């Protein structure tokens, strides 16, 4: 009857609980001076832990600027590898072709192209004569 659903308390039970609670509260006000002093020290130690929020971070405009700066840095750092600058190489050109293009003697040969043409013609003439 007292607990029809296991969750409710009757008015008598509530009054009983209130008496117990009041007695416990009274006993909590009867701590000796040493205990009160230790509680006070504990409270002061706790208050020292409160850190003021930075005044600058509470300024909306500055906070917005800081957010934008962080966003720019983050995007630049997180840029995918595929978008990173690639070496200037024309697709389809192999390394060996590149070496040929970059070799100095090849450019010299182009300068003396007329000489090499004469040399080849002369060798052909000698061959046909021999």
């Amino acid at each position: 009857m007292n607990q029809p659903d296991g969750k409710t308390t009757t008015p008598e039970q509530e009054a009983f609980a209130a008496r117990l609670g009041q007695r416990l509260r009274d006993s909590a006000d009867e701590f000796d001076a040493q205990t009160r002093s230790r509680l006070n020290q504990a409270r002061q130690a706790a208050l020292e832990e409160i850190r003021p929020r930075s005044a600058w971070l509470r300024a909306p405009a500055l906070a917005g600027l800081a957010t934008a700066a962080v966003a720019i840095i983050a995007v630049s750092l997180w840029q995918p590898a595929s978008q990173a600058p690639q070496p200037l190489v024309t697709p389809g050109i192999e390394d060996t072709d590149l070496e040929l293009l970059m070799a100095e003697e090849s450019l010299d040969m182009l300068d003396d192209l007329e000489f090499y043409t004469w040399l080849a013609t002369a060798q052909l003439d000698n061959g046909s004569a021999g």
Partner: protein
Amino acid sequence: MHRVDAIEPQGVCFQADGEELHLDQRQAMDRFLAGVEHRALRIAQLAVRDNDEALDIVQDAMIRLARSYAQRPEAEWTPLFYRILNNRITDYRRRSAVRNRIFSWWRPGEQDDPVPQPGELAEGRESDRPDRQLAADNAMQGLEAAVQALPARQREAFLLRALEGLNVADTAAAMGCSQGSVKTHYSRAVHKLREELGEHWQ
């Protein structure tokens, strides 16, 4: 025409506001902690049965609240504080249980539970029922013993509701459970306490 000297640098304004806010926050936290510290210590004493440990637990809870939740609205501080306090008490009891188990391995002849101090009762011991204590000791001692003999969750619900005066919602937040569970634990605790103490506290 604007006077140049009337314009304050904005940074100074923010700094002044910040200090004022910090002082308000500190004063509010001081008032809050001063208001709950005695009852919090009483709850911790009843749970761990050791005054020094209870004081340490209350101090830990105060520091944690101030360090981590001072920026939260004051209305949230009460359930947050008691949530932290209950967690600290639970941690202490677990550590004590492990320590007692280890000591019992070293010295197999000894019991797992700590030896109760005079006037205290171990949980659930038939030979030390609160009503027998009440016959010999005063009513307060019997009340403490009966509360200590409650299962942990029932004791939490009873102390938060009856001693601290929290409503069901805040008690549920402090205990980390549903309001229905709070009602069940509280009802069982009151029912059990009335069975144990009824004739002396009517």
